[in-house]
């Protein structure tokens, strides 16, 4: 066992490092740009030099890189302070769906501009009545000539307000069984008939939106997959979640709470000397190191050209509750001051308070803890799906609390 790159990997890493250190935008270069402009500036620079979406085929704007090269790229890029990406959903989920289901002409039109960051994409799946149970969605599409007319509502759409395009799953046949009455489209987010309302979160931020459709017209040519095949297409999107390995998790982690415990007094001694504090920190340390080394195991498989095992499926289920618990514990260490959330008065400019308030979202977004546990039980351990009350009956006859 060793942690070293292969000769080829080392060469690639050097190339990446050299390009990054010459090209990561400096502060003066980005002076006066807002976060969207900064993100687009950086993405375009990568694209122009052939470093955007490196795993994509060359004709779509990538460089045909291997999975391990993507991991190396992620690791090296994360060492720099680069603008926060707004392309994760577009590159990680929309693009693979387009590659699998769109026409050649559409791929040629949309993928390079997605890679270059000139066009931003979002994903319109969840609905007020369909989150974990996504296929329960109710937004309707009805055929009218060569167009579809769409009415309904989506929710939790990240970046809807700055997106140019979006992928959308809708119900085209309510009389069919739940999963069989769906179809999949991509839409122009600037079309008439779309209204976007930001959702204010408990953390105070607004990362998500509600998106309302009233008589939105979408050409049939923007349908991906057959009529009624929407669920299958949606699965392509959902299976292509961004490779979670590589990169580094910032924010509240072992290091930040360990440093806090060294600094804070408890009964006149540094809190780190308290055995309870040590025990808790040790438990979180082994979760973090366990995730890190699970990542190394996956990288080893990728490096050999093999498909990684399921060890990385635990990442979000371990990481998200850990963030919440660690933030809460840090606030305990701060005693009464833990109750202040004021940049002028809080330790670390309120990092622990902000994480405490943001962390419930981490346990829900992209699959709740409960759904993640189901996925592990079903896909990794091979346990049966839960019995479903909605199986084999038309969508319209499925019991629901209320129907709009």
């Amino acid at each position, binding site marked *: *066992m*060793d*942690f*070293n*790159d292969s000769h080829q*990997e080392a060469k690639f890493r050097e190339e990446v490092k050299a390009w990054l250190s010459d090209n990561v935008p400096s502060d003066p270069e980005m002076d006066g740009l807002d976060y969207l402009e900064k993100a687009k500036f950086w993405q375009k620079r990568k694209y122009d030099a052939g470093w955007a979406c490196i795993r994509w085929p060359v004709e779509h704007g990538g460089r045909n890189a291997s999975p*391990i090269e993507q991991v190396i790229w992620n690791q090296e890029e994360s060492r720099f302070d680069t603008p926060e990406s707004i392309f994760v959903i577009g590159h990680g989920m929309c693009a693979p769906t387009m590659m699998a289901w769109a026409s050649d002409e559409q791929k040629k039109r949309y993928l390079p501009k997605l890679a270059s960051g000139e066009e931003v994409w979002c994903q319109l799946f969840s609905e007020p009545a369909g989150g974990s149970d996504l296929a329960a969605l109710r937004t309707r599409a009805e055929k009218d000539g060569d167009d579809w007319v769409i009415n309904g509502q989506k929710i939790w759409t990240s970046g809807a307000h700055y997106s140019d395009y979006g992928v959308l799953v809708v119900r085209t046949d309510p009389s069919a069984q739940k999963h069989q009455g769906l179809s999949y489209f991509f839409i122009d987010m600037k079309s008439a008939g779309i209204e976007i309302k930001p959702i204010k979160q408990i953390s105070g931020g607004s990362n998500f939106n509600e998106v309302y459709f009233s008589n939105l017209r979408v050409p049939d040519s923007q349908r991906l997959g057959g009529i009624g095949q929407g669920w299958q297409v949606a699965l392509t999107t959902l299976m292509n979640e961004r490779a979670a390995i590589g990169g580094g998790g910032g924010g509240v982690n072992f290091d930040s709470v*360990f440093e806090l415990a060294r600094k804070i007094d408890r009964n006149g001694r540094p809190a*780190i000397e308290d*055995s309870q504090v*040590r*025990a808790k*920190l*040790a*438990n979180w*340390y*082994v*979760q973090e*190191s*366990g*995730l*890190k*080394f*699970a990542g*190394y*195991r996956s*990288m*080893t*498989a990728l*490096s*050999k050209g093999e498909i990684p095992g399921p*060890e990385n499926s*635990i990442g979000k*289920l*371990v990481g998200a509750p850990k963030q919440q618990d660690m933030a809460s514990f840090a606030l305990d260490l701060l005693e009464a001051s833990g109750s202040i959330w004021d940049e002028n008065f809080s330790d670390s400019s309120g990092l622990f308070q902000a994480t405490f308030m943001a962390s419930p979202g981490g346990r829900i977004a992209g699959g709740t803890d*409960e759904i*993640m*546990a*189901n996925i*592990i*039980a*079903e896909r*990794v*351990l*091979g*346990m*049966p*799906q*839960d*019995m479903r009350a909605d199986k084999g009956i038309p969508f319209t006859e499925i019991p629901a609390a209320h129907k709009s």
Partner: protein
Amino acid sequence: MNFEFSEEQQLLREQAQSFLADNCSTKRVRETFESESPYDRDLWQKVVDLGWTAASIPEKYQGLELSYLNLCVIAEELGRSLAPIPFSSSVYLATESLILFGTEEQKSYFLPRLASGEVIGCFASDEAQRASSLGGPKTTFSDGRISGEKIPVADGSIADFAIVLAKKGDLDSSAFIVDLNSPEVERIPVKSIDPSRDQAKLVFHEVPAEELGNKVSGNMILKAIYDRAAILFAWEQVGGSETALHMAKDYAMDRFAFGRPIASFQAIKHKLANMYVKNTLARSNCYYGAWAISTNSKEIATAAAAARLSSIQAFYFSSKENIQTHGGMGFTWEFDCQIPYRRARLLASNIGSEAIWQDKLISSIEETRAA
């Protein structure tokens, strides 16, 4: 990045699994468990014949001098099969003590005999409720003789010799080699929470003893040996923990309630998913440990504590929730759920508890960052 066992080691794993499936079924473990015999002699002999007791011993002393990664593989498979043999005492503790600290003469005498299975060793550090890593031993060494009591000593009724921690007069402690067949040694069998593994009380009445190595402090020996052993124990614990998960899954798939397999209930799925999560974290930390022990890394203290701590937690969780998944049947003597549950508890008590390793982990991180 190559963070994986080699093909040769994977082959060893397959051989070990097939050998243990034939020779160490749960039924077989239960025979030792329910008998008066302190270990499975037949299985032990076969393990010796396979060369596993010689794995880490240098060729110079008639060992196989394999990588410690091979020993990690063996440890995991012995843990998975819940093997009722004194492997951890003799190999991870006694053999390692001699390899690391023994004089040339001691190594030449003991290591070939440990390799060939002619002798079994054990490690006697604990004295009743006094954790071995806290304070010094009460057992004393003077004028070439040891007096005192050690309890519990894992495999103390089986072993031919023990590495005993004792205080040298008013000075520091050290480790001593004691022939357990001496008339001055009283061996009192002690009932164990895991009856498939032996525990004893050893009373030394001025028994002749020889210091291990050349004036090495007992604390240094204890730390070095426990750090290395912790990684190997952790692999056994991960193996055992996977057994508990598989027992729970097999039962949940076959057991029907309310007209469906209980494996289809989320309460059961989430329980088992949690076992998988804890096992995966523990296994990944064990990989770190395997890397550290096989490369003699400076990070071994951190790696050992991380592997040990997460494996204690995983095995405890899986073994108790395995009983819970079985419902009332899991609480019966007849079902095998008690075997991993007892083993998890035994291994968690050997070589320092969860609390001690939590503290050691933070201490080693503090030391690394101060450096």
